[in-house]
């Protein structure tokens, strides 16, 4: 049973023992250290790529169910080989580079997009002793490295020599940059409580109670901000198909398009793991080993992302910007202020009766701040009902240019 619960550390130990006996004594210790490190890196760098295949399958099946249809079910049992078929198809597709594109930037952009996303998996703790690196600035590293994606999106949009791509890139930069700030400040609430940016220590801090109980408001802000950062559906207007074709990757085809898609889903997977680590006590849980618990949580959070995608319609750009600057930003500052006061008042850990108090404060603040958005309870012009509706429909098109 030990092997089941501590699979990866034990595998590493066994492999180190085998290497030490197999290699001659003249080989120094650091070589073995390096070889082991490289092997674990190979595992971790392939983890998002395999995980993305599962996520794409899961999203298509779930969306199918939400929309009262079957989803992919032809390739393999239950359509489980569909992502493999898609991968083969996308690899062998013709690679079109249109006239007038800036060839160097056009080709580098997918690489710049994917590399930072793969990097964020290096610091996530997958279990008790299962992590590649134990950075003391873990969470800051993740946010900083994934912010590079904004540049990649702009590179893709600018070099494409396409108006739609440029529009998509402009929207992307405005949106990603705006939601970066509520995201960072929501993380700040967790850092204030735990007193560390090290992801392993943040998980250790939640061994008794997950932080979502003490940070309900912070969790909501983080979730909304991250769905905007990852272009998930209510905020996916940088690639809104009905307005600007496909946004910044309009001109991409074949594997380059696949890499953008891969980066998007890998970021989703990585940030689901970050949400699990920050708020849902990471790999800790009863019964199952840590690495399995983390993936149960990751796919649970991913299911919520799919659910919001299936439920909510797309926002307009002014609503998106107003939500970031007039709603989430003040709310996240208030959240940090309340959390900081709580941490200073109760020096030896927060008492448990604060949990309902925090939830009530969070709900009250959301209700009050909602007025700042100035939408007056409606997000767009509502078409009237009854005879007024008929009049509105029968009104001459073009609206009075006479």
């Amino acid at each position, binding site marked *: 049973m030990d092997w089941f619960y501590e699979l990866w550390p034990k595998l590493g130990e066994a492999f180190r023992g085998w290497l030490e006996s197999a290699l001659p004594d003249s080989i120094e210790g650091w070589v073995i250290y*390096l070889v082991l*490190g*490289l092997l674990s890196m190979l595992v971790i*760098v392939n983890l998002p790529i395999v995980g993305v295949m599962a996520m794409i399958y899961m999203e298509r099946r779930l969306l199918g169910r939400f929309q009262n249809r079957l989803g992919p079910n032809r390739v393999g049992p239950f359509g489980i080989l569909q992502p493999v078929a898609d991968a083969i198809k996308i*690899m*062998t*597709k*013709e*690679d*079109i580079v249109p*006239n*007038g594109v800036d060839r160097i930037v056009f080709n580098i952009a*997918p*690489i710049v997009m*994917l*590399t930072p996303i*793969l*990097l964020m998996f*290096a*610091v996530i703790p997958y279990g008790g002793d299962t992590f*590649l*690196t*134990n*950075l*003391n600035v873990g969470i800051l590293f993740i946010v900083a490295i994934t912010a590079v994606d904004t540049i990649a999106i702009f590179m893709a949009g600018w070099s494409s*020599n*396409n108006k739609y*791509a*440029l529009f998509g890139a*402009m929207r992307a*930069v*405005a949106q990603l*940059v*705006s939601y*970066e*700030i509520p995201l*960072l400040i929501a993380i*700040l609430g967790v*850092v*204030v409580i735990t007193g*560390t*940016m090290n992801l392993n220590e943040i998980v250790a801090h939640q061994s008794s109670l997950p932080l979502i109980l003490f940070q309900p408001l912070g969790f909501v802000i983080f979730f909304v901000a991250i769905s905007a950062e990852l272009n998930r559906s209510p905020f996916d207007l940088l690639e809104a198909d009905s307005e600007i*074709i496909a946004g910044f990757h*309009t*001109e991409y085809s*074949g*594997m*380059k398009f*696949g*890499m953008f898609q891969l980066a998007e889903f890998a970021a989703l997977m990585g940030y689901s793991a970050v949400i699990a680590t920050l708020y849902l006590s990471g790999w800790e849980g009863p019964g199952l080993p840590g690495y399995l618990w983390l993936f149960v949580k990751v796919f649970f959070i991913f299911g919520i992302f799919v659910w919001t995608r299936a439920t909510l319609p797309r926002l307009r*750009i*002014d609503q998106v*910007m*107003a939500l970031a*600057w007039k709603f989430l*930003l003040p709310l996240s500052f208030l959240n940090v202020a309340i959390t*900081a*006061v709580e941490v*200073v008042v109760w*020096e030896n850990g927060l008492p448990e009766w604060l949990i309902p108090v925090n939830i009530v404060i969070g709900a009250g603040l959301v209700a009050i701040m909602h007025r700042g958005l100035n939408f007056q309870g409606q997000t767009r012009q509502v078409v009237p009902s009854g005879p007024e509706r008929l009049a509105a429909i029968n009104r001459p098109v073009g609206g009075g240019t006479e």
Partner: protein
Amino acid sequence: MLADYGYIGIYLLLATLIPVSMLLIPWALSFVGVKPHNPTPVKLETYESGMRTIGGSWIRFNFRYYYFALLFVIFDVEVVFLFPWAVYLDKLKLFGLIEMGIFILILMVGYAYAWRKKALEWS
């Protein structure tokens, strides 16, 4: 701690290698004959919903983007100051709380000014 950053450095090389190989493998496949390559003048045109492309693509865009970029820089720099404070809050105690309260208050004056001047409006 330093070894951890070394690992990150090696991992960066690996994480660059994988996307590069993802570009190179399809490129190599086109020599084997698995992947088609027949460009035609129409296919290589800039995509514009099936119409002939009109004008250049580097067009004017809404100046509002510039406002948001400016505001972003201000708040992003602020967050850089907030993170070390958050880590050491349990040692700074009340002093740290008041100090950071004043800092954020000064910034909030600027934020309120931006809101009042309608820099946060899109239209």
